[in-house]
C-alpha cells in the first residue's frame, strides 16, 4: 500500500536526521523522504503535522504466553512498537525448533509486528543440558536466554557460552544469584525491613553479573545483560565494555522512574523482577543510559491476569505490563534527564536493534517501513480500560503521561491508527 506521511518532524536516531519532511512508503519500504517519487499516488495520507515520525520502537523484553498473542500484539502496535524480542519462557518454553516456528507463524499472521524469539539456552530452561542452539537459530531465534531461571552450575554456564560463541550466537542473561535472592520479593534495605518483606540484596545481582562478565571475557561470547538494576551493576558493565568484553545491556523503563519506596502500602503492581531498588540505583541507571553504558531501554512487558496480582505482595506474580507505556515513559525520562529526543528515542529504536543484532529501528530510503507517528505534546491518562494488553498491571495507573501514538506502520502496513 502506498502511504504518504505528511508534514511530520522526522527523527532518525541512527543518522541523526531531524527535520520536517514527508515520508513515502510503498511495498513495505520507505521509498522517499522529502520529495515524492515520480508518478506518486497515495492510497493513504497521514497528516503528521505537529507529530514526530520516528522509527518503530524495538522492545527487547516482551513476555507473551500463547493465549494472549492477539491482545499483546495489539498492545505493541498501540504503543508504537514494531519489533519485539520475546523471552523463551512461553508455555511450553521455546526449546524446540517446532515451537519457535509455530510462534513466529502465528505472529506473522497478524501482519502488525515483527516478533523475534529468544530460544532457551538450556532444555526446559532447567540449566542442565544445552538446548539445540543451531537448530533453534535456523528456526529464527536471534539469541539464547534463560528468562528468570538461573543456571546454577557455573560449569554449565561456561559450556553454554563456549558453545554459543562457536557459532557467534548471543547469550542473554538476567543476573541474579538464586541463593542470595532466595525467596526475596523486594530490594533488601530500609523499605523491605519496614514492610517485613524478604529482601533481594544488591549483591545477588553484582555477584551473578561479575560471573557472567568474566565468563563472557573468557569465552568471547556476545553477552547481553538483561534488566540491570543496581548502581554497582552499571559500573561493572561500564568497566567490562572498556575492557573489550563483547557486552550490551538493557534496563527496564520502570527502573528509570520508580524506587522501592513506591511500593507504598504493599502495592503488588510494584512487585517487579529485578526488584525496584533505591534512588541511588535509579540515578546510576539513568546515568548509564545517558553515557551509553546501557544500550537499550525495554518495557519488560509482563502482562498478568488480575487475580495473579490481587494477592499479598509476596504471593503476587512479579512484573508489569509495559508495551503501551514504553514510549511515553521514555519521553518523560528524556525530559527529566535533559536527554535529547534523538538520544532517548535511540535507546528504544536504533541502539536497541544494534544490541540485538536486528536490522530495524532506522528511517532511510530502502529501509523497511517500520514507523511510529506520535504527538509529543499530547498527554493521556493511564487507565486499565485504556490498555489493550490483557495485563492491566501497570505501576503507572493514574499517571498522566506525555506522548500519544497516532499511527504505527509495520513493514508498510498500518498496524495501528488512533481514532481521529
Amino acid at each position: 500500500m502506498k502511504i504518504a506521511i505528511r508534514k511530520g518532524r522526522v527523527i532518525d536516531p541512527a543518522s541523526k536526521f531531524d527535520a520536517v519532511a514527508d515520508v513515502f512508503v510503498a511495498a513495505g519500504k520507505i521509498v522517499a523522504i522529502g520529495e515524492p517519487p515520480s508518478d506518486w499516488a497515495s492510497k493513504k495520507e497521514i497528516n503528521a503535522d505537529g507529530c514526530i515520525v520516528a522509527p518503530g520502537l524495538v522492545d527487547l523484553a516482551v513476555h507473551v504466553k500463547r493465549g494472549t498473542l492477539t491482545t499483546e500484539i495489539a498492545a505493541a502496535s498501540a504503543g508504537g512498537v514494531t519489533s519485539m524480542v520475546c523471552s523463551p519462557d512461553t508455555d511450553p518454553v521455546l526449546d524446540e525448533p517446532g515451537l519457535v516456528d509455530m510462534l513466529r507463524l502465528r505472529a506473522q499472521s497478524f501482519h502488525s509486528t515483527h516478533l523475534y524469539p529468544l530460544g532457551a539456552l538450556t532444555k526446559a530452561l532447567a540449566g542442565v543440558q544445552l538446548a539445540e542452539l543451531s537448530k533453534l537459530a535456523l528456526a529464527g531465534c536471534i539469541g539464547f536466554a534463560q528468562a528468570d531461571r538461573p543456571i546454577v552450575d557455573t560449569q554449565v554456564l561456561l559450556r553454554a557460552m563456549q558453545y554459543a560463541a562457536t557459532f557467534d550466537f548471543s547469550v542473554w542473561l538476567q543476573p541474579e544469584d538464586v541463593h542470595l535472592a532466595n525467596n526475596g520479593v523486594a530490594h533488601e534495605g530500609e523499605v523491605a525491613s519496614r514492610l517485613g518483606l524478604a529482601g533481594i540484596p544488591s549483591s545477588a545481582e553484582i555477584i551473578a553479573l561479575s560471573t557472567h562478565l568474566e565468563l563472557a571475557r573468557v569465552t568471547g561470547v556476545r553477552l547481553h545483560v538483561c534488566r540491570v538494576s543496581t548502581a554497582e551493576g552499571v559500573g561493572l558493565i561500564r568497566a567490562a565494555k572498556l575492557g573489550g568484553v563483547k557486552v550490551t545491556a538493557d534496563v527496564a523503563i520502570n527502573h528509570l522512574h520508580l524506587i522501592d519506596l513506591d511500593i507504598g502500602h504493599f502495592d503488588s503492581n510494584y512487585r517487579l523482577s529485578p526488584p525496584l531498588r533505591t534512588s541511588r540505583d535509579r540515578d546510576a541507571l539513568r546515568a548509564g543510559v545517558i553515557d551509553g553504558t546501557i544500550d537499550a531501554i525495554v518495557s519488560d512487558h509482563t502482562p498478568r491476569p488480575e487475580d495473579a496480582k490481587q494477592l499479598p505482595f509476596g504471593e503476587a506474580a512479579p512484573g508489569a505490563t509495559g508495551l503501551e507505556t514504553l514510549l511515553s515513559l521514555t519521553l518523560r525520562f528524556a525530559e527529566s534527564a535533559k536527554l535529547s529526543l534523538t538520544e532517548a528515542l535511540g535507546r528504544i529504536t536504533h541502539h536497541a536493534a544494534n544490541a540485538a543484532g536486528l536490522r530495524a529501528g532506522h528511517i532511510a530510503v530502502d529501509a523497511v517501513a517500520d514507523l511510529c507517528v506520535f504527538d509529543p505534546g499530547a498527554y493521556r491518562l493511564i487507565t486499565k480500560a485504556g490498555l489493550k494488553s490483557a495485563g492491566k498491571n501497570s505501576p503507572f495507573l493514574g499517571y498522566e503521561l506525555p506522548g500519544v501514538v497516532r499511527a504505527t506502520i509495520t513493514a508498510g502496513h498500518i498496524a495501528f491508527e488512533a481514532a481521529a
Partner: protein
Amino acid sequence: MLSKKNLQLNDNGDLHHLLAIEGLPKRIIERILDTAESFVGINEREVKVVPLLRGKSIFNIFFENSTRTRTTFEIAAKRLSADVVSLDVQRSSTNKGETILDTIANLTAMHADMFVVRHSESGAPYLIAQHAAPHVHVVNAGDGRHEHPTQGLLDVFTIRRYKKDFTRLTVAIVGDVLHSRVARSQIHALTTLGVPEVRVIGPRTLLPADIERLGVRVFTSLEEGLKGVDVVTMLRLQNERMTGALLPSASEYFSRYGLTPQKLALAKPDAIVLHPGPMNRGVEIDSAVADGSQSVILPQVTYGIAIRMAVMAILAGATR
C-alpha cells in the same frame, strides 16, 4: 506520583482499620491505651461483660494458625457482647481456588462488621482493607514479618503500667528481629510515644538490613546492649531458624543471647522483662528470669485482652 493514602484513618482522622503501628498518630495510640485502662477494671469484675458491641459481628480469620492470639481476640469480643466467629482458613483450601478476596466477599455478605486477620504474608491485611466494604473494619492480628499492632500496643500498655513516663526510658529488644512482627510494632509504638532510646540486640544474621533507619540503636553484644536499660523485650526464636545458616545451634544462641539472671543484672535494678509468648525456655530466656520477680510476661497476657477490647470498641465507634 499517586497518593499513598493512610488506609488506617478515615477522613476525620479517626481510626478506621488497625493495620500497623507505623503511621499511627500518638493521640490515637494514647486513646487506645486510655480506653484499655478502663477495660482492665471490667476484666477484674465477676461479671466481665459490657454491652458496647451488642449486635455486631466480628470474624476472626486466621490464615495462619495461632490458638493464643485467636483466643484473646475471641474473649475480648465476647466481653464486649459482640457475636464472634473464628475461622481457621487453611492455606491449602485457599490454594484450591478461593482467594483471600473471595473469602472476604463471602463473609461481608454475611454482614460482618469487623475482620480480625492473621496471615503469613506481610501486607495481607492491607489487601483486605483495600477491598473491604466501607463500613467494615480490619484489625491486623499479625501479618508475616511486618506488624502485630495489638501486640505492640499491649507491650507499651504493660510498660506504661510499670514505668509511667515513656520519655525517660531505655528499651532493649533482643533476638530474632529479622522475622519478628512484634519487634517492628513495638519499635514504632515506643518511638511514637517518645522513648528516647530503643535498642535492638542480636547477631547480624537476625537483624534486618538498615534497621537503624527505624530509629533504633543496634547492638550485637547482649551484655553491652542491656547496660542501664529499663525494659527488656525478649523475642521468640523459632526452632526452624536453626536448620539453615542463620545460627549454629540453640545452645550456642542461648550462650550469647539467652537472658539469664546474670545478664539481666546488667540492666537497671527495677528493669522489667517482656516476652510476647510462647516462650522457648532455655533458648532465648532462662526459667529463672521468665518466672522471676522482674518478669511481666503474665500481666502482658492479661492486658492483651483489655487492649483488644479497646481496639474493637474504638473501631466500632462504641467509645467517644
